[in-house]
C-alpha cells in the first residue's frame, strides 16, 4: 500500500506540468491559433519562476513570475501572428528557440543555487489519513491548480457564452468577424492565457519537481503537451486522461525496471508515448467521430477594414 501511495504521488507530480501546459494550449487551439512555442514559454517560465522564488523565498511569487514570463513571451507570438499575420508554425518554432536562449541567459546566474521545495497542503486530521490522506490533501498547490484549471476550461468552453464565441472563432473566424466579434482581441487573450499556463507549468519544474534550475530542464515536456492536445482531440476530458496516463506509464515503467520485469528499457521508455497514443485514439474511435480540429486552426486572419 505504501508503495502504491508513493507511486500515485509520483504520477501526480509527473503529470501536473503536462496537464498545466496542455490545458492552456487547448484553449489557444480552440480559438484557432496554433502556438508551437509551448516548450519555449515553459523553459522561460522555469527560469523566471526559479529567479522569483530564489529572490523572495516564496513559491507563490515564483509561480507568478513564471506565469508573467510565459505571458510576456506569448505576447511576442501574438504580436507576430495576430498583429502582423506571420505564419504561426514558423513563429511558434522560433518562439521555442528564443525561449531556450532567453531562459539560459536568465538562468545562467542561478545554476547551482538551491531553493526549498513548494510547500504541501496540510490539513490536520485529513492529510494524516492512511493512504488517501497524502494523495488527496497533501499535494503542492500546483496539483490542485492544474485540476481546477482544466475543470474551469471545460466549464468556460461548454457552459458559457464567451466560451461559445471562442469556439466559434476557432472554427470560422470570418463568420465570427462578420457577426461582430473581435476575433484578434479574443485570440490575443487566449494566447496570453496559454502563455500563462505554459509559464506556470515551466515554473512547476524548478519550484516543486526538482528544486534547482538547469538550462533545458523542461526536456521536451512542452512538445508532449502539444501532442496531448492533438491526441485528446481538443477535448478537456480526454486531455486529463491523456496527461495522467502519460504520467502514470512514465512512472510505472521506472518501477517495472526496479522490479526486474524482463522488458528492454528502451521499449519501456517508449511506452508512455505508445500507451497514450493508443488509448486516446481508441477513445476517439469508439465515440462517434469525436471532435475534430478547430476548422480555422493555424490559419491567418486579417480583418478587412
Amino acid at each position: 500500500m505504501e508503495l502504491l501511495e508513493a507511486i500515485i504521488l509520483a504520477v501526480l507530480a509527473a503529470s501536473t506540468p503536462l496537464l498545466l501546459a496542455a490545458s492552456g494550449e487547448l484553449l489557444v487551439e480552440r480559438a484557432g491559433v496554433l502556438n508551437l512555442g509551448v516548450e519555449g514559454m515553459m523553459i522561460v517560465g522555469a527560469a523566471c519562476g526559479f529567479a522569483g522564488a530564489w529572490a523572495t523565498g516564496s513559491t507563490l511569487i515564483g509561480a507568478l513570475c513564471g506565469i508573467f514570463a510565459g505571458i510576456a513571451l506569448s505576447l511576442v507570438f501574438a504580436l507576430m501572428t495576430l498583429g502582423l499575420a506571420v505564419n504561426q508554425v514558423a513563429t511558434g518554432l522560433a518562439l521555442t528557440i528564443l525561449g531556450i536562449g532567453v531562459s539560459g541567459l536568465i538562468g545562467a546566474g542561478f545554476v547551482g543555487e538551491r531553493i526549498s521545495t513548494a510547500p504541501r497542503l496540510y490539513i490536520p486530521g485529513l492529510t494524516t489519513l492512511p493512504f488517501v490522506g497524502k494523495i488527496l490533501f497533501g499535494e503542492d498547490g500546483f496539483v490542485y491548480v492544474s485540476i481546477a484549471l482544466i475543470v474551469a476550461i471545460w466549464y468556460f468552453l461548454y457552459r458559457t457564452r464567451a466560451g461559445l464565441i471562442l469556439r466559434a472563432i476557432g472554427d470560422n473566424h470570418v463568420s465570427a468577424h462578420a457577426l461582430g466579434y473581435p476575433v484578434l482581441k479574443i485570440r490575443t487573450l487566449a494566447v496570453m492565457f496559454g502563455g500563462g499556463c505554459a509559464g506556470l507549468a515551466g515554473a512547476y519544474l524548478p519550484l516543486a519537481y526538482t528544486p534547482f534550475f538547469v538550462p533545458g530542464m523542461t526536456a521536451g515536456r512542452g512538445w508532449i503537451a502539444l501532442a496531448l492536445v492533438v491526441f485528446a482531440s481538443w477535448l478537456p476530458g480526454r486531455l486529463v486522461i491523456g496527461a495522467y496516463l502519460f504520467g502514470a506509464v512514465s512512472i510505472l515503467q521506472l518501477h517495472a525496471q526496479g522490479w526486474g520485469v524482463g522488458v528492454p528499457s528502451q521499449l519501456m521508455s517508449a511506452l508512455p508515448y505508445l500507451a497514450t497514443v493508443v488509448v486516446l485514439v481508441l477513445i476517439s474511435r469508439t465515440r462517434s467521430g469525436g471532435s475534430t480540429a478547430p476548422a480555422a486552426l493555424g490559419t491567418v486572419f486579417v480583418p478587412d477594414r
Partner: protein
Amino acid sequence: MNRKALAAAAMLLATGLGLGAAVAADKLKVGFVYIGPVGDFGWTYQHEVGRQMLVKEFGDKIETTYLENVSEGPDSERSIEQLARAGNQLIFTTSFGYMDPTLKVAKRHPKVMFEHATGFKRDKNMSSYSGRFFEGRYIQGQIAAKMSKKGVLGYIGSFPIPEVISGINATMLAAQKINPDIKIKIIWVNTWFDPGKEADAAKALLDQGADVIMQHTDSPAAMQVASERGALAFGQDSDMIKFGPKTQLTAVTNNWGPYYVERVKAALDGTWKSEDTWAGLKEKMVVMAPYTNMPDDVKKMAMDTEAAIIAGTLKPFKCPVLGQDGKEVECKGGDALDPGQVLGMNFYVKGIDDKIPGK
C-alpha cells in the same frame, strides 16, 4: 612578370622565416561539441571547465567555440561538420554517441584533428580519450555497501553502453567484497539529461527499498531527491555537495582540463598524433570529491582503496571475474580484464539480478 617574381620572392622569404611564425600568427581554432547545456552541473559542465582552462592557459593563441545541447545521431554529424567547415583545426566531441558521426566527418576533413570522448573508434586524424571512471565507481561500491542499512543499492543508468555497464559491475564487485548479499536495483532512464525523469527514477528506487542512490546521468536531481528523503547518494561528473550537504558521500568527478591543455599544446607544436588515452585516478583525469557524511573507518577504507588503485596494487576488474551465469570471464589482460574487455563490456557480473536491456 615583375609581380609574379615579387610574389615568388615573398613566398621564399616567408618559408625562410619559418612556417612556425606564420602559423603562430594564425590562431588555432578549437571546437567543442557538448551533449547538454554548459550549465548542467554535470558532464557537460566539466568539459566546459576544461575548455575554460584552455582559454586561461593559451590566451589569444587559440580561439575556442562550443556547441551545446547537440543531440546524438544525425544532428551531431551536422554540427561537427559545421565546426570543421568553420575552420576549427582541433575538434573535441564529448559524448559516446558522437563516435560514428565524428569518424564520418574526420574522413571528409583529413586535415582537421578530431578528439572523441569515451568511444573506441579511431582514425589517422581522430583520437579517442576517456576516463577510467570505473575506478571511482569501485570506491563508491565499497562505501555504498558499508553505508547501506538495507543492503539495497539504487542505480540510475542512462543508456546501456559499456561505460555505464562497467560502472555498474565495478560498483557491484566492490560492494560484494563488503557484503556478499548486497542487492542492486537498476533503472534506465534512456536519457543523459532530464532532471524530472532522473528525480522520478530516484524516487522509484527509494520507494522500492534502496537507501543509497548512485547515478550515471548528468543532473543533480537524484542527489536532491535523496537529500529530501534523508537517504545517501553519490554525485556524478561534478561535485554535487551543494545539492546534498548531508547526502553526498563522494562523487566521481571528471577533470578534462589537463588533457585538453596537453592536446592543444601538441596541436600548436605540430606534434599532434592520433592516440588512445585512457586515464584514471592516477593521471587525475578521474578525481574523487571529498569523502563526506560517513564514519572515519569508512572514510579511511575509501582513501586506502583510492591509494591502492593509484599505486596499481588494486585492480577493480581483477581476475577471476564471474559472469551472471557464474562462469569465469576470459581473462585477456593477465591478472585483470584487459582495456578492450572493459571498454566493450556488455555483461553483468554475478550477483546482479537483472538483464542488460535489449540483450
